[in-house]
């Protein structure tokens, strides 16, 4: 096909993509975000599938059968099993405005600038081969489509005639348009995410289209395809399972893919930084694996189809997706497939470059710039964007250089795996940091450095050596080791042979990495700053951690506002601080206190723009800080959790108070209603007949008494509950006390026509020699007795009412029972009667009570260490009883 057509189609596609991004940005500005949707989130994760998937998987499958699979099973496992890990990463990043994986690790270990720089370097060096892979894929595809040889795309020419260079620059331009258009650095890239989600759909559909064409266009369905494959020995060999199942290699690949799907800078960008809602993770946990399944269904059919169609070894399997439709005379499908492949490559490059540019800008360039006086006071918003754009161009050019150097020696998949192994080095420091408070900066740094060094030696150096670019002498390094030292050979370190180069590299690098991380962390305890960050990260889901701020010192509001303004722009800074002030219920920024919380707020806002390490340095430069010791950190944690306890108690007391207030209000209004109504009626009818007036006045008096009783009992209850009640304890003679109570209620029982029977033992034994049998407040006990007796009097039948007051004693104490022959208390009311303002019985009997008698009695009995209970069978009377232990409370004498 003509280059003009191909380039035209590619440009048209990129413009359409840009249109999607611009549309999403406009929607976001209008407040109708398109990325607030779990499907878009899951699709944007599809950026995992790059040109590697699109071209490389088929190549891998054509060579080794099912070996393309672990790279997709890994992420599937990771998402299904480890989505809570992802959710925690999102929560942490949201809480502390973390915008990259370098920032995440650095922030966790005390906001260390050195660590941030180190992680950034690893990520940068690690993703360069990956970017090169995309360039290689696109340029091979372009060469094939325009009729050239895909195996030597543009190589013989000088660099200025190399199409790959122009592809790299074109992609850099688009990335800049997508990712760094806004002057506001902290905002999410809504447009980019929408475009990536769209790309995921495009590449999936294009790949499936080719797969369907191969299965049903070239052959009579998959069954026919595989039947024919088995008939050709060279092809059948690919499908044959290996004689020995390579557990080690499967394990290494699965582990690598599991770690990569979370730690690759672009995955961290779309899964964590661009996430708008934690709940989307749940949907993505199955939707993303489903996407991976769909895009892999036709890998094997296309690979086998290509081998059958062209014959083994006749065409490059990595471009079967294009060469099959071309050879079969369906150029439009080849063009669709080309756009799909371009889609896969551009998506990866755009997100990866944006993620890496953020890291390089915040964690490598900025710390150096900020040290220079010339930049110390300038407004830096524009500069930040400029740096990011330069980094994007730089990354693409580095990718191009790697492609020129090493691109020919390796297949797409192998290049990609080198990148995977690099980012896998983040695992110990990052996962350890999220779940283990003991991890230290020293351990993380040493682990990362050792892991990265071993990765470079065992994977990166061989990849360059095998390219032959540095001459054959350099290549002997692999076979004889440096200076002829055999045990330093990159692919057989310490003589460890028998593993494939990837498993070998992964084994040594992760072993050294994790070993140093754990070992050094245990060797010396973390500093105060590390410990405080550890608490913030590990306990991010605990409510206690909200509101913890580990900072002490003095600051001025104006300094903080102007500092944030330098990086975010003065207008945005002002509106951020105003929003913060409003949330605290203040009118304006000037009313804010420059306290630890405000400093923390300012630092978090800055961290979103320039990374937590730089933010820390900048904030420290405008405030006076006290150095926190580890003890201070622990004290702040304790204070915060104490404060939370007190708050919770106050809240529950508040609710209790509300309930009681509502009940008290009702109880007060009810008698007031009768009193007011009757008084008004008498006022408005001067000619009311005398008996009527007497009845009304009688009711008014009764209701007034009821009000007084209520007020007294509410006060009494409040006193007892708050512990302000007075207790005049003395030695109690229970027999005398009960007889007195019976006397006091004799009149009441006579009125009701009921009999009261007193059953007392001959004497109450005094235990333990001369000690008094019982110490308590006689008046309070009488109050309980009178309450129980008058309740009983209310409920006994009008004829033949009988109440028994009985005292029994045993070794433990005394039990007093009030037994009536009334209707009893229904089961469902037996607990209720002890609640405040709840009364048993029917309305006709009620006006006497306030609903507080029993609750108060119970409180009194319990104060003396006893128990008050009810035993009743409906229809067979009821028995209210309380026990008092011989040894009362420790002589709690009169409390003023």
């Amino acid at each position, binding site marked *: 096909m003509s280059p003009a057509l191909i380039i035209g189609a590619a440009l048209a596609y990129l413009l359409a993509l840009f249109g999607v991004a611009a549309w999403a940005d406009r929607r976001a500005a209008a407040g109708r975000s398109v990325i607030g949707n779990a499907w878009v989130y899951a699709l944007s994760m599809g950026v995992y599938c790059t040109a590697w998937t699109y071209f490389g998987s088929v190549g891998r499958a054509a060579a080794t059968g099912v070996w393309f699979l672990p790279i997709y099973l890994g992420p599937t496992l990771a998402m299904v099993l480890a989505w809570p890990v992802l959710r925690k990463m999102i929560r942490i990043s949201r809480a502390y405005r973390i915008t990259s994986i370098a920032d995440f690790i650095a922030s966790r270990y005390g906001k260390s600038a050195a660590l941030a720089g180190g992680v950034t370097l690893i990520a940068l060096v690690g993703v360069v081969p990956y970017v090169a892979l995309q360039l290689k894929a696109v340029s091979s595809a372009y060469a094939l489509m325009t009729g050239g040889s895909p195996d030597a795309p543009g190589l013989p020419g000088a660099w200025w005639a190399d199409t790959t260079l122009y592809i790299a620059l074109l992609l850099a331009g688009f990335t800049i348009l997508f990712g760094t258009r806004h002057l506001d650095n902290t905002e999410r890239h809504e447009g980019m995410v929408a475009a990536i989600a769209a790309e995921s759909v495009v590449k999936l559909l294009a790949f499936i289209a080719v797969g369907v064409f191969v299965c049903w266009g070239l052959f009579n369905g998959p069954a026919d395809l595989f039947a024919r494959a088995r008939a050709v020995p060279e092809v059948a060999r690919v499908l044959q399972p290996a004689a020995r199942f390579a557990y080690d290699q499967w394990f290494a690949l699965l582990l690598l893919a599991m770690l990569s799907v979370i730690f690759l800078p672009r995955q961290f960008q779309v899964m964590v930084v661009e996430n708008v809602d934690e709940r989307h993770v749940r949907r993505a946990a199955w939707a993303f694996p489903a996407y991976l399944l769909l895009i892999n269904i036709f890998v094997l059919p296309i690979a086998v189809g290509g081998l059958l169609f062209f014959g083994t070894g006749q065409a490059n399997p990595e471009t079967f997706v294009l060469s099959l439709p071309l050879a079969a005379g369906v150029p439009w499908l080849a063009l669709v497939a080309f756009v799909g492949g371009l889609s896969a490559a551009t998506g990866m490059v755009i997100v990866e470059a944006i993620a890496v540019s953020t890291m390089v800008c915040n964690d490598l360039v900025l710390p150096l710039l900020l040290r220079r006086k010339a930049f110390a006071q300038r407004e830096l918003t524009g500069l930040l964007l400029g740096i990011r754009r330069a980094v994007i161009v730089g990354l693409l050019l580095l990718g191009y250089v790697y492609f020129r150097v090493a691109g020919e020696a390796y297949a797409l998949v192998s290049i990609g795996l080198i990148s995977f192994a690099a980012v896998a080095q983040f695992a110990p420091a990052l996962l350890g940091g999220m779940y283990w408070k003991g991890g230290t900066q020293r351990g993380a740094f040493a682990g990362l450095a050792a892991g990265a060094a071993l990765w470079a030696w065992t994977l990166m150096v061989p990849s360059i050596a095998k390219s032959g670019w540095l001459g054959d002498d350099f290549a002997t390094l692999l076979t004889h080791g440096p200076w002829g030292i055999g045990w330093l050979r990159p692919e057989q370190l310490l003589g460890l042979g028998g593993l494939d180069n990837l498993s070998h590299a992964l084994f040594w690098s992760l072993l050294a990495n994790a070993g140093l991380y754990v070992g050094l962390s245990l060797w010396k305890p973390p500093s105060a700053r590390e410990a405080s960050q550890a608490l913030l990260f590990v306990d991010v889901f605990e409510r206690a951690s909200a509101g913890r701020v580990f900072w002490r010192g003095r600051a001025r509001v104006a300094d903080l506002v102007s500092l944030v303004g330098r990086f975010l722009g003065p207008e945005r800074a002002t509106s951020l601080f105003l929003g913060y002030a409003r949330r605290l219920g203040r009118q304006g920024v000037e009313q804010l206190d420059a306290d630890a919380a405000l400093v923390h707020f300012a630092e978090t806002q800055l961290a979103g723009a320039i990374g937590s390490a730089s933010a820390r340095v900048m904030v420290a430069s405008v405030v006076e800080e006290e150095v926190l010791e580890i003890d201070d950190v622990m004290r702040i944690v304790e204070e915060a959790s104490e404060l939370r306890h007190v708050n919770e108690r106050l809240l529950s007391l508040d609710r209790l108070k509300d309930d009681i207030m509502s009940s008290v209000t*009702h109880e007060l209004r*009810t008698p007031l*209603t009768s009193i*007011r109504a009757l008084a*008004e009626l008498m006022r408005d009818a001067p000619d009311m007949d005398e008996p009527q007036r007497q009845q009304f006045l009688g*009711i008014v008096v*009764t209701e007034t008494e009821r009000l007084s009783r209520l007020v007294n009992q509410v006060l009494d209850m409040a006193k007892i509950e708050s512990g302000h009640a007075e207790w005049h304890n003395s030695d109690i003679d229970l027999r005398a006390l009960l007889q007195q109570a019976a006397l006091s209620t004799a009149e009441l029982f006579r009125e009701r026509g009921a009999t009261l029977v007193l059953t007392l033992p001959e004497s109450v034994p005094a235990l333990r020699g001369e000690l008094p049998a019982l110490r308590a407040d006689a008046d309070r006990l009488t109050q309980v007795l009178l309450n129980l007796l008058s309740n009983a009097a209310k409920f006994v039948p009008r004829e033949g009412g009988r109440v028994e007051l009985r005292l029994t004693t045993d070794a433990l104490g005394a039990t007093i029972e009030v037994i009536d022959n009334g209707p009893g208390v229904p089961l469902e009311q037996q607990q209720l009667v002890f609640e405040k303002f709840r009364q048993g019985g029917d*309305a006709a009997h*009620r*006006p006497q009570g306030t609903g507080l008698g029993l609750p108060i009695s119970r409180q009194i009995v319990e104060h003396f260490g006893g128990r008050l209970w009810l035993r009743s069978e409906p229809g067979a009377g009821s028995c209210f009883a309380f026990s008092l232990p011989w040894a009362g409370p420790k002589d709690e004498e009169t409390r003023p």
Partner: protein
Amino acid sequence: MTKKVLIADDEPNILISLEFLMKREGWLVSVARDGIEALAAIHRERPDLVLLDVMMPGKSGFEVCAALRADESLAGIKVLMLTAKGRDTDVAQGLGVGADGYMTKPFSTKELAARVREMLA
């Protein structure tokens, strides 16, 4: 024809005062002491208006009102809720179950009488 008013309240003294007030106003009065009794009286007496207390044993005023409104044959009966709880949520709940009016206790007898006259006009 003289209109009929049913008073439902579990406080005997409030019942006495309301009964006196409504009779003085010239309505035919019947009384009920709890929610269940009130519903029975509504079916039996077919009053034109019910003065309905909210906090009653058996069935609360809200439940009585809801049951009344759910019964087609009882359409046209006016309901004036009376309650000692005067919170906004209670008012909203009362009107939500279909009460025609709502007064909090303690009420002014004049206002209550005027309100009943207006509702029965």
